């Protein structure tokens, strides 16, 4: 049972349920207490022990149902420690419950465990024999044929698992590969020899030979079904989530402007994940502050050496330096996607940077902070795009608006992030205002989705803006975005 549990944990981990070894040990120690006779109890107990937030609980439920089918648990409790499926199949017990035949032979399993193939394949043979009367004098010549007709079920499973390993079935990534892997496994098990033997037998003709050919054929088809089920299982366990991970990796690198609408949901998930990581890294940073409450304990300790006269005071309070971020986003056509995800990122970080003020513009600047605070991300995003998304970009106007509206709020703790391609349609860039912002604020960061080589081409004004920024960055994928935000946190939190 332990091995099966470890396999189950492995599957949970691919499904993005973070299970630490310590938790696995906890689960092991819980096993003797809860037992596995009561499926609900067993499931609830494992769920409480292994999955630690609502999303993980959901993933856990699907994994559990997939991994421990009803028969599995039944057979585990029937055979107890005596029969451990994973000793035959290191991928777990999943190979053991698919065919109906298993139920028939379930009863004599313990016997088989002792006798090593004594009653093996009984049901298959019995079936075949009923057709062919007493004609088992004829024995198949190929290895696979012998295995199928005479080998025990556990031997067959070992062969299947070995062939699976040879075919590297746990590398399966997409569902279209199912057929390929089924064939690979069949071949690895010696399908070719079997096929040749069948056709030879058929050509030779005669009662015993034809009978044997028929039995072999039936066994082969049964095997094919089993292999297909096996591959299916492996796919569900390994690939479904791997495929997702692969997609995530790709999405992180793809240019944000090339994203299609159907990917938005995935991307949003990734952004939240990234934000969570950043929160975990940065939220602990606090400055000790030399004011506020006296730490009496420390003070007493410190002043004991001065005969208990308290003159060297110690303070206990620490101060969280909450940064102020102002984010100005270009919402015109080409750049709007970038703005969308930058804003999404910043608002996902509300826990550590609570004071984000955001502005959107294409020509006129407008503050959208309220929209984001009041409604959820998606609605806010849609509203912003609707209200500010149209019109030709005018960076000069934007800077003038900014100066008029909130230059007074900028102080030496403010970080200003401007996201845009700086394509000003040959208007007046007004870079002197940016200079002013540069001098008043803590940092001005300009994020440009275009590659650096295009920054000075055409109507782009980056050449004039860049010297008035503390930092300029190319930013056109989630990975870039993550790096920029991480940097931001490093300097501001």
């Amino acid at each position, binding site marked *: 049972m332990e091995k099966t549990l470890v396999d189950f944990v492995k599957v949970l981990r691919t499904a993005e349920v973070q299970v630490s070894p310590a938790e696995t040990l*906890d689960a092991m120690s*819980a096993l003797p207490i809860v037992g596995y006779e009561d499926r609900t*109890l067993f499931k609830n107990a494992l769920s*409480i*022990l292994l999955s630690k*937030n*609502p999303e993980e609980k959901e993933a856990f439920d699907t994994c559990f149902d997939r991994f421990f089918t009803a028969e599995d648990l039944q057979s585990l409790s029937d055979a107890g420690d005596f029969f451990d499926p994973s000793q035959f199949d290191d991928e777990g017990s999943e190979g053991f419950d698919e065919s109906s035949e298993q139920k028939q032979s379930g009863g004599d399993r313990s016997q088989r465990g002792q006798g090593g193939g004594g009653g093996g394949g009984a049901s298959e043979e019995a079936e075949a024999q009923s057709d062919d009367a007493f004609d088992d004098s004829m024995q198949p010549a190929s290895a696979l044929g012998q295995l199928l007709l005479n080998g025990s079920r556990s031997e067959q499973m070992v062969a299947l698992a070995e062939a699976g390993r040879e075919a590297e079935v746990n590398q399966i990534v997409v569902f279209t590969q199912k057929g390929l892997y089924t064939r690979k496994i069949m071949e690895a098990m010696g399908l070719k020899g079997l096929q040749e033997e069948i056709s030879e037998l058929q050509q030779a003709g005669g009662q015993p030979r034809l009978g044997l050919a028929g039995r072999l054929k039936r066994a082969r088809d049964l095997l094919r079904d089993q292999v297909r089920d096996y591959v299916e299982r492996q796919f569900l366990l390994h690939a479904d989530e791997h495929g997702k991970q692969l997609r995530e990796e790709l999405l992180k690198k793809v240019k944000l402007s090339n994203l299609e609408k159907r990917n938005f949901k995935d991307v949003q998930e990734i952004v939240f994940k990234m934000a969570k990581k950043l*929160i975990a890294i940065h939220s602990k940073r606090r400055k000790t502050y030399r004011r506020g409450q006296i730490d009496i*304990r420390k003070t007493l300790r410190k002043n004991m050496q001065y005969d208990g006269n308290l003159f060297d005071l110690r303070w206990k309070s620490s101060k969280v330096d909450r940064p102020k971020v102002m984010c100005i986003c270009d919402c015109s056509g080409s750049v709007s996607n970038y703005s969308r995800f930058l804003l999404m990122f910043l608002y996902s970080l509300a826990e550590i940077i609570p004071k984000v003020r955001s502005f959107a513009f294409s020509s006129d600047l407008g503050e959208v902070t309220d929209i984001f605070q009041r409604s959820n991300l998606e609605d806010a995003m849609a509203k912003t795009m609707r209200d500010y998304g149209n019109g030709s970009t005018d960076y000069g106007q934007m800077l003038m608006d900014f100066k008029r509206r909130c230059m007074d709020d900028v102080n030496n703790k403010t970080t200003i992030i401007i996201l845009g391609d700086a394509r000003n349609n040959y208007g007046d860039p007004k870079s002197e205002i940016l200079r002013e912002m540069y001098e008043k604020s803590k940092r001005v960061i300009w994020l440009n989705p275009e590659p650096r080589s295009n920054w000075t081409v055409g109507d782009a004004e980056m050449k004039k803006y860049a010297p008035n920024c503390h930092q300029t960055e190319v930013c056109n994928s989630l990975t870039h975005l993550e790096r920029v935000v991480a940097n931001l946190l490093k300097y501001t939190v």
Partner: protein
Amino acid sequence: MPSHNAPFFSPGLIREPNIITKSHQGVRLSTQRAEKLATVEAISEGLASLNYISNLKISTAVFLAHHLDKPVLIEGPPGVGKTELAKSVAALLNMECVRLQCYEGLDESKAIYEWKYGKQLLYTQVLKETLGEILEGAKGLSESVAKLHEFGDVFFSEEFLEPRPLLKALKNQEGCVLLIDEVDKSDYEFESLLLEMLSDYQLSIPEIGTIQANPDHKPLVFLTSNNTREISDALKRRCLHLYIPFPDADLETAIVHARVPDVPMQLRDQLVAFVQALRDLDLKKVPAISETIDWAKTLLLLHSESLDQDLVRQTLNVILKFQEDIEAVEAELPMLTNKAIKRD
């Protein structure tokens, strides 16, 4: 007795001498408790007798917490009975419930222990006055220092220790329920402070040493969280994790029945159906079980037999706590009420 590894304890400070009676009592208590926690069903029944209607998951969590000696982290929306569970378990096992309410800025001096500074200062002064007597006959500095050492260090000892909830729970020899409420409201530092307590049931006080819980009666620890922020992995890893969602209609009916038994059956079904429907709407704060119970009590006071639109409109402020929610629901009130009434 506690196995305090207190290196510089003065002998007079070791606990009162009623060890034997205590341990006898302890055995009796522990068998009683073991019976009540023997199976998941027993727990469910026990809690139900205290008017706490649990589901299988909740009972399993309590069961595992007892048998694995692990703390339980309870998460879920506000008002589903997270705190109530800890209190009910304490009542079930007839144990003291020590509660620690978390908030931003909570630190060890409020959660674990604090020195009694005033007394400590007085003690040093007393010591100063009696110093002459102690050092009588000592020649030279080294001898005086040796004599001082013999005298024993009481300055940092349990005598001057003011136990706070965590330490209190740990020192409770008969076992108790420790409820650490809304742990998500505390700071990250405080979480790490909890780790030692949660994994080993011990606390380290630098000046004294490590204080351990009675190994036969470890406190049963419940932590609750409203998910205002993510709890650190280190903390989660040490806990069993129980998520209590909003209950389904049957469970909620059972809860209302247990808590407000006088409500007529028809009204009970209707109001539960109504609240269940409300939870599907897009509201700022959806009504929780506690609100359902309050509503049931309200309707009982108004002597109503069944729901109708006017009644719902007048009492809507009991279940909805935001004006905008009330306005949003009022528009759909006829539809919702009809649905709730028709259901049975």
